[in-house]
C-alpha cells in the first residue's frame, strides 16, 4: 500500500501538466485531481479515473430540448476569427444532408467581404442566403431572413453574426437587439444560440462564455480548429461552471469538417 504512493505522486504531477497544457485551467485541474485521488481505485489507473471524471462533467450537462416551433432560429456568435462564418456554411450543409431546409442569414454587415465569404459557403452547401439591403443594420437583416424563411417554408434559419469581443458593450447590445427581433417574429427565438470557440483559446474562453451567455442567451458551444494541436480544454471548465454543452466540433476547413460532439472521443483525444 505504502509503496504505491510515490508512483502516484509522479503520475499526479504528470496528469496535472497534461490537463493544464490542454487549457483545462488550474481550478478545474485541481478539482479533477482532488476528486480522483479521493476515489477508491479498484484497479483502475489514475489516468482512467481522470478520463471518467471528465466524461462525467460532460454527461451532467443536458442538451437543450428541441422546441416544436418552426422555423427554428439558430444564432451563431463569438469573438473575432473563431470560425463562425465557416461553421454556418458547414452546419447548413450538414442539416441539409439530414433532410432540413436551412436558410442562411448574413447578419455581419460590418467586416470586409464577410457577406461574400458566407455567400460562397451558401453556394457550396446549396442553400439560399438572405443579405442586407443597402445600409441595413444586422437586426434588420435578421428580420428579413425570418420573414423570407416563413414565406418559403425554410427551417432552420442560421444567422451568422460579426465577430465581437465580449468587452465591447455596444456590440454585445447589438446581439441583444437581434435576439429581441427574432423573439418577436418567432415564439421562443432564437431557439439555439451557439457560441463558437476556437480550440486554441486560453482561460479567456470562460469569460467569453459567461458574457455571451448573459447577454445573448448562449445555450451551446461549437469548438473549432480541433484538427490542430490545441485541445480546447476550456470546454471542460465551461461545462462544469456554466453547464453549457458542446454541440459540434470543427475539425478542418472543408465543408464536411463539422461533427456532433462526442465526449468519449474528446476525452480520448486529451490523452493522445
Amino acid at each position: 500500500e505504502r509503496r504505491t504512493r510515490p508512483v502516484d505522486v509522479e503520475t499526479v504531477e504528470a496528469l496535472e501538466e497534461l490537463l493544464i497544457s490542454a487549457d483545462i485551467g488550474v481550478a478545474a485541474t485541481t478539482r479533477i485531481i482532488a476528486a480522483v485521488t479521493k476515489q477508491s481505485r479498484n484497479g483502475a489507473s489514475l489516468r482512467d479515473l481522470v478520463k471518467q471524471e471528465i466524461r462525467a462533467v460532460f454527461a451532467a450537462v443536458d442538451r437543450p430540448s428541441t422546441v416544436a416551433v418552426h422555423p427554428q432560429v439558430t444564432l451563431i456568435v463569438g469573438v473575432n476569427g473563431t470560425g463562425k462564418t465557416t461553421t454556418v456554411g458547414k452546419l447548413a450543409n450538414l442539416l441539409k444532408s439530414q433532410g432540413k431546409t436551412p436558410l442562411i442569414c448574413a447578419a455581419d454587415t460590418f467586416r470586409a467581404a464577410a457577406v461574400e465569404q458566407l455567400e460562397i459557403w451558401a453556394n457550396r452547401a446549396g442553400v439560399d442566403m438572405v443579405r442586407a439591403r443597402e445600409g441595413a443594420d444586422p437586426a434588420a437583416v435578421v428580420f428579413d431572413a425570418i420573414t423570407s424563411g416563413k414565406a418559403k417554408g425554410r427551417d432552420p434559419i442560421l444567422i451568422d453574426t460579426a465577430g465581437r469581443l465580449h468587452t465591447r458593450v455596444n456590440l454585445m447590445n447589438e446581439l441583444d437587439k437581434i435576439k429581441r427581433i427574432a423573439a418577436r417574429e418567432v415564439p421562443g427565438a432564437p431557439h439555439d444560440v451557439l457560441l463558437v470557440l476556437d480550440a486554441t483559446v486560453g482561460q479567456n474562453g470562460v469569460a467569453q462564455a459567461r458574457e455571451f451567455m448573459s447577454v445573448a442567451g448562449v445555450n451551446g458551444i461549437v469548438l473549432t480548429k480541433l484538427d490542430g494541436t490545441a485541445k480546447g480544454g476550456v470546454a471542460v471548465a465551461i461545462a462544469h461552471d456554466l453547464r453549457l454543452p458542446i454541440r459540434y466540433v470543427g475539425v478542418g476547413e472543408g465543408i464536411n469538417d463539422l461533427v456532433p460532439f462526442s465526449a468519449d472521443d474528446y476525452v480520448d483525444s486529451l490523452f493522445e
Partner: protein
Amino acid sequence: SLSTRLQDVFKTLRGESRLTPENIEAALREIRLALLEADVNFKVVKAFVDRVRDRAMDAVTNKDTLRGLGPSQEVVKIVRDEMVALFGNAEGGLQATTKRPRVILMLGLQGAGKTTTSGKLAMWLKTQGKHPLLVSTDVKRPAAIQQLNVVAEKVGVRVHDPAGEMNPVTRAKGAVAEATTLGFDVVIVDTAGRLHIDDELMAELVAIKNVTDPSDLLFVADAMTGQDAIKSAGEFNAQVGVTGVVLTKMDGDARGGAALSVVSVVGVPIAFVGSGERLEDLEPFHPERVVSRVLG
C-alpha cells in the same frame, strides 16, 4: 492582482519582514498559479519561476533587500523586472534592412488577424511616407483576396491581384517584381492561415519566403491563445523563421500570457500590437503594459 496575492501569502507567514528561502517558496507557488491562470505556458512558467527563485535567493544571501520594500513588494519587483527583461529592450517595429523593396511576410494560424494586420501595417507605413504594395496569397479561404482588396481600398494603397492567378508562390513573386518595376518600397505579403502540423502548407510558406526574400517574417498571434501558443510559434519559427510577433485582439480582456510564451520560444520581440478592428488600431509594443496585464 499578483501584488495582493503575494501580500496575503506573506501575511499568513506571520508577518515576516524579510525574504527567507521558506517564504520565497510560498511566494513562488502563488506566482506559478497566477501565471498559469494568465495563460503563460506551463514550461515557460517553470523556467520563469526558477529564474525568479535565483534572483530572490540572491537577495537573501546578499542581503541587498531593496530599501523601503517589504518582502512581498520585493518579490513583485523581481517578477516584474524579470518579465520586462524577457520581453527584451527592443523597440519593436520592423527590422533594419537595406533590401529594396522591403518584404514583410505575414504568417500564423487561422483567424489570428493576418489580413487585417496587413492593412493596418500598410496604413502605418503610408503615414510614414512609405509606398506599400499589398498582395494576398490566400487562394483558399472564400473571398480572402476580396477581403484584402477592400482593406487596401480603405487604406488607399495598391494591391497586386493578377486576375486568374491562383498559384500563391507566383502571386507573391509577381508582387515583388511589380514593386521593383514601379518603385514601391514595401511589399506586404498576406498568407492563408494554416496549421503548423500541415506539412504541405508549411512547405508552401517556405516556398513563398524563398521567392520573396522577406526582411520581416511576422508571426501573427491571438492574444487570447492558451497553452498552444508555444507549439504553433515554435513550429513556425523552426520551419519558416520568425523575426517578430504581432499580438492581436489586445483590446479584449485576455491576460495575454501567450505573449510571454511566444517571445520565450521564438526569442524575438513583439513588433506590434493589434488593439482593435479599425485599420488605425496598430500600436507599438509596451512591455510594462503587457506585464501589468499578465500579473493582473
